[in-house]
């Protein structure tokens, strides 16, 4: 099992689309854990997804991520925990304890999003928009939520 964390210094990198360091944890099912640091040289989102696939990553824990990139990564069978913040060590501990969806590790405005999304699990977008004072309108975007959920489940 390979878990990748997109990091900057000792914390989760704010934006995965612009991050250039990945900490890869390899777990063997016991307590053994191997840590490797790799650089993502490219900034093109499509290449980032391919890069993760080539590294054999199973789980990605990252900060803010654009949805085309997230869906692209998820479509490769990689579980994505997006919009996560915190120090590397506390995030690793929270992941192992199953506490990653706690509000403590969610970026502002993104509470409820950092649940592992495989092929496009629910993302609570409507709630956030309403909280942010954006009027809930019967718009194309309003329908996207439903169709995106259907389309990727």
């Amino acid at each position, binding site marked *: 099992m390979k878990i990748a964390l997109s990091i900057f210094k000792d914390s989760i990198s704010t934006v995965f689309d612009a991050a250039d360091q990945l900490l890869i944890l390899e777990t063997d099912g016991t307590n053994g854990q191997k840590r490797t640091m790799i650089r993502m040289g490219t900034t093109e989102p499509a290449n980032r997804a391919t890069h993760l696939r080539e590294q054999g990553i199973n789980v990605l824990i990252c900060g803010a991520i654009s949805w*085309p990139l997230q*869906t692209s990564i998820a479509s490769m069978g990689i579980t994505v925990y997006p919009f996560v913040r915190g120090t590397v060590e506390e995030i690793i501990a929270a992941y192992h304890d199953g506490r990653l969806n706690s509000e403590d590790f969610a970026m502002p405005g993104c509470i409820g999003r950092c649940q592992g999304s495989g092929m*496009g699990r629910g993302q609570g977008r409507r709630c956030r928009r309403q909280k942010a*004072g954006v009027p809930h309108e019967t718009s*194309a975007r309003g329908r996207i939520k439903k169709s*995106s959920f*259907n389309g*990727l489940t």
Partner: protein
Amino acid sequence: MSGRSRPNKTSFQIQDEQSAILDSIADGVFTVDKDWRITSFNRAAEQITGVSRSEAIGQLCKDVLKADICEKRCCLRATMKNGVPIIDKKVHIIDAEGRRLPISISTALLRGKFGNLLGAVETFRDISVEEDLRKAVHARYSFSDIISKNHKILQLFNILPDIADSASTVLIEGESGTGKELFARAIHNLSPRKKQPFVAVNCSALPDTLLESELFGYKAGAFTDAKKDKPGRFRLAQNGTLFLDEIGEITPAMQVKLLRVLQEKTYEPLGATQSVEHNVRILAATNKNLEELVRQKKFREDLYYRINVFKITLPPLCERMEDIPLLIEHFINRFNVLQKKSVTGVSDEAMTVLMSYSYPGNIRELANIIERAFILCKTGLIEKRHLPESLFNVKSSESKEGSLCLRDVEAEYLANALRQNNWNFPQTARQLGIHKSTLYRKIKSLGIKPFPSIQS
């Protein structure tokens, strides 16, 4: 004089006033203290970032703004360090919905009454539509500009970097209006040739003789009026990419010439005595089924195999209906800016009609439908009455006129109801007044095939 004296205001009143002033500004504004924690956050900032004020206050600005410069090239940090304001710097942020938005930011120091440093202020505005139009003008498209959540397109995204990396010829098949050129440009802009030219030629637009001189160029004196050398598209695309659109339309004579150019990697400009070597990557596109044309002897088999090193088939819009709301939103944003209108979206009824249509003209047709609606709809939501009448005469493609049995009629009726409800099963069941398990059973027994993406 006493009537002109300034009334004493409490600190709460002053705060309220400041907040009202900030909220009246159309640009996003936030202030930070010396520890980079947000101290004020206006309404426009809420709307652009998707983060509410209550969630933003007290947080580190990087966690709220989520900009690509936050960690290494933070503008606020630069301003705090050297006191110099930054004006209109373009950066990208990720909003709370995961959209990557280009914004223009400006920063300045925030000083107190006595000149003491309190922190800094950042103003920003969403320039995504301007950016989108700029891309449209310069055609600098990348994969992130391809709007889709369709599984077939996502699968393509996963292999396209590898295709872009290689130098092989690619054949892009798809109906008219499915975005073949957009994909070709995205492949080019992702490839190692991205800094070299991308040259597009529509092969069906020119007769044979003109196409030959267009592609290969000519030498002075090659024919009357050829006063000086003219470089062809192969020369113009040297080291870059040549996109041959509508390749299925070229004549057999031109097919032979093109085959030779692709095989030998050389071409001869008209009137030239020597061959010229080229280093051009070919991307070809067609809205025809080339395999079928080969079978009908209308397209040379050897040329077909030469260009069909890797084939990409783009699905028509009717096979990626889940993308329609995304595309509609995209076109509404674009036309709002172009036509200075404030259309907010599409009503439920209008969306039902748009989701029921089969779009033979694909995305181009959808764009035209929205553009037409903008003529009639000045503000608010696009309603049913703003849509063309042709959309209301939807006939199921599966209908078999003249040979309908009761089972066929029932299947067609159910398929139409599902389509109108965006393939939402519970909603369809409610509309039909049946239990959803009955609906599922009927779908199964009648063999109705939902959209592939929803099947799973």
